C-alpha cells in the first residue's frame, strides 16, 4: 500500500491554509495583522499559498507604535510591495494625538499596551470583522487556551471563561453586528516549527533576527538597544555587542540576546539549545503573572 503520511510541518501547513481559507469564506472583511515579525511573515507566506494564483483577498494591517527599528519598516514596505496587497496602518501616535490613548510615563514607558486601543480603532475604521494574527499557543500560557477562531465582543474583549468549544475542522465564525474575531492559523506551531519552516520554504526574514553589532545596555534584566525611544540613563552602561532579536516588536520592550548566530542554521541550533522561552526577553510579559491575559481581555492581539 502507498504511504499517505505527511510530516508534521506539512500537516501544520495544511491546517493553517485551511484556517486562512475558512477565514476568507466566513467573514465579510478580514484583515491580516502584519508586524514584520517572523510569525506574521510566515502567516503571509501561507496566505500566498492558500489563494494562489489569486491575490490574497484581504488587506494587511500594521499597528504602528512609532517605536520601530527602521529595518522593520523597510522590510515591511518591500514585502507588501512584492505580494501586491493593500496595507492599512493604524498609528498609535494618532491615537495619542486624538486623546484616545494616553502615553505611559516613566523610564520604562512602553506603547505596547496602547496598541490595543489603536488596533480596536483600526478595526472600527476599516470595518474589519476578523483579524488574522500570528499568535501561537506555545508562546505564553494564556495563549495555550486560545481558540483558532477567537470571539471578541463589541468592546473588543476576550472572555476566556466563555470560549466556544472548537471541534474537528468545524469553526464557528458567526457573530452579531459590532462583534469580531481574532483568528490564529499558527496556533499549533512552536517557535522551532516556525524557524524550520522558514528554512524549508526559503522565506526571507528581517536582519534583526540575525547576529549583528549594536549598541545595547542592561535594564531590568533585559538587554535593550540604544534607540531614539530607549535612551540609556547615566548609570546604565552602553556597550557594543553581537546581538540578535528573538521577537521583533516595539523597540521599548523587545530585548536583544547576545548571539553569534548569523545564519538560519545558526539560529535553529541556538533556539534548540536555548533554555529560555522567546518571550522570556520581553518586558511586557514580565509585568505580572497574568500580564498577557489582561492585555488580551482588553483587545490585545
Amino acid at each position, binding site marked *: 500500500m502507498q504511504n*499517505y*503520511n*505527511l*510530516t*508534521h*510541518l*506539512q*500537516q*501544520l501547513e*495544511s*491546517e493553517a*491554509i485551511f484556517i486562512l*481559507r*475558512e477565514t476568507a*469564506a466566513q467573514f465579510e472583511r478580514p484583515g491580516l495583522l502584519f508586524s514584520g515579525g517572523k510569525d506574521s511573515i510566515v502567516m503571509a507566506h501561507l496566505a*500566498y*499559498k*492558500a*489563494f*494562489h*494564483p*489569486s*491575490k490574497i483577498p484581504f488587506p494587511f494591517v500594521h499597528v504602528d507604535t512609532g517605536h520601530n527599528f527602521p529595518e522593520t519598516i523597510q522590510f515591511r514596505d518591500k514585502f507588501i510591495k512584492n505580494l501586491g496587497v493593500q496595507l492599512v496602518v493604524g498609528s498609535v501616535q494618532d491615537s495619542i494625538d486624538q486623546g484616545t490613548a494616553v502615553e505611559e510615563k516613566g523610564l520604562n514607558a512602553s506603547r505596547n499596551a496602547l496598541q490595543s486601543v489603536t488596533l480596536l480603532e483600526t478595526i472600527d475604521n476599516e470595518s474589519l470583522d476578523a483579524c488574522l494574527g500570528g499568535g501561537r*499557543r*506555545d508562546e505564553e*500560557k*494564556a*495563549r*495555550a*487556551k486560545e481558540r483558532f477562531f477567537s470571539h471578541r465582543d463589541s468592546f473588543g474583549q476576550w472572555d*476566556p*471563561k466563555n470560549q*466556544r*468549544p*472548537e*471541534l*474537528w*475542522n*468545524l469553526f*464557528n465564525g*458567526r*457573530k*452579531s453586528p459590532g462583534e469580531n474575531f481574532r483568528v490564529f492559523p499558527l496556533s*499549533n506551531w*512552536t517557535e*522551532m516549527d516556525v524557524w*524550520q519552516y522558514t*528554512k*524549508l520554504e526559503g522565506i526571507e526574514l528581517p536582519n534583526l533576527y540575525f547576529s549583528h553589532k549594536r549598541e545595547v545596555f542592561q535594564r531590568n534584566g533585559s538587554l535593550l538597544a540604544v534607540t531614539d525611544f530607549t535612551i540609556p540613563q547615566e548609570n546604565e552602561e552602553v556597550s557594543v555587542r553581537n546581538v540578535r532579536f528573538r521577537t521583533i516588536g516595539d523597540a521599548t520592550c523587545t530585548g536583544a540576546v547576545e548571539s553569534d548566530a548569523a545564519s538560519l542554521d545558526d539560529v*535553529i*541550533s541556538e533556539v*534548540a*539549545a*536555548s*533554555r*529560555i*522561552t522567546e518571550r*522570556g526577553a520581553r518586558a511586557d510579559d514580565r509585568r505580572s503573572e*497574568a500580564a498577557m*491575559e489582561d492585555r488580551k481581555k482588553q483587545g490585545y492581539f
Partner: protein
Amino acid sequence: MNDTKNYLDMDLLRFTTAGSVDDGKSTLIGRLFHDTKSIFEDQLEAIERSSKQRGDENVNLALLTDGLRAEREQGITIDVAYRYFATPKRKFIIADTPGHIQYTRNMVTGASTANLALILVDARNGVIEQTKRHTFIADLLGIKHIAVCINKMDLVGYDQDKYEKILNQFTDFASRLENVTDLTFIPISALKGDNVVDRSVDMPWYKGPPLLYHLENVYVGSDFNHVDARFPVQWVIRPHSDEYHDFRGFGGRVAGGVFKKGDEVTVLPSGFSTKIKNILLADKEVEQAFHPQSVTILLEDEIDVSRGDMLVKPNNQPHVSQDLDARICWFSGTKKLVKGTKCIFRHTTKEAQAIISEIKYKVDVNTLRKNEEDLEFGMNDIGRIQIRVSQPVFHDTYRRNRNTGSFILVDPFTNETLAAGMLR
C-alpha cells in the same frame, strides 16, 4: 532537535489527557516535558515562584498548564489547554483537559482531534467512575488508541498483582467499547519517573515499552480513511487577472480518500461528472492529494461548483439525506435541548437550518446506562437524537470518516456553539 533533516522527517501525534491533579496527570505531563527538555528555565522559575507564593509544598506543575487567572485562583483547570513537545521522532500536541464531570464538553473537544487518549488510573484506587467516563468519551469520539497508565505504582510497592487486577478490571469494562482497537497498559510512577521515559528498574516483570517509546512509535497512519474520496469545496479561486484569465480552482482540504490527476469525479449536489485536470499544492503541481492535505483542484469541464459542494468519485458516493441519526454532546449552559429546538447545522464546509425532530435517549456517562425517560439535554449531556436539515447533507458515518461524519450545532440568536454531533 537542531538536526534539520531529522526535524523535517518528524510526524505528528495528537493525544488527549483527562484527569484532575489528584491522579498525577500534571505530574506526568511535567515529567514528559522535563525529561524531553521541553520545559524552559524561565517557565520553571515562574512556576517555582508562584508555587512558593501560594504556599505549595512542592513545585506545582499544574501551574504550567493553568494559564488563566481564574484557574490559578481557584486551583482548577477550566479549559482545554494545548501543549507541545517534541522528540527527534515525533512532534506531540497534547489536548489537556480537566477531568471533573462538569467538564465533559472539554473532554469531548480535546478528543475530537486526537489520535490517542492517555488515561490515568491511580494504582491504589483501580478503575473508578472517572476512568470509565474518560474512556467512554474517547471511544465515542472515535479514538482508536488508548494508553492506560496505571500510575503511582511506587505507592503499591510496584506490585504486579495490583497491576494485573486493574488491567483485568479495565479490559472487562473495555469490551463494550466500539472504536478502540489498541489498548495498551503501562505501569508507571510519574513522580519517580518509572516507565515514563526510561524503563523502570523496580518493575522487571513488565516487558512492554515505557510510555514515551509507545507514544513515539504507535502507528496511526492507517487510522485515516484513504478509501472514500471526499473533497468539500471550501473556497473558489478565480484570479480575474490577465495572466490567469480562465483559471478556476477549487480550494479545500481532502476529507477522505485519494484524488489523482485524471480521476473522474462527481460534483454533489448537482451530480455532474468530469475529470480532474490538475491538482495544485499552493503554487506547485502534484499528482495526487489525500487527507489532510489542503489543495486546489482544477476540473476539465466548466461546471458550477461553489463552497459547500463536494467532489466525490462516481462509484463511491456518500449518504445523501436530510434526516440524520446522530449522537451528540450538548454544550450550552443556558439553553436546553428539547424536541423541536431549531439551530444552525454546520457540517464540512456547509451550513444549513435544522430542527431536532426526535430525542431518543440520554446516556449516563458514569454508568453508561440509557435514559429514555428524561429527554431534556442540559450542559454536558450525551445522547442520541434525530435531526432534520433544510437541505440534503452529503455524509458518512462518523465511524467511517471523522471529517464527513461530524457536525456542530449553533444557536441562531446567540451564535454560541450548542453541541457536537457524530452521525450514525
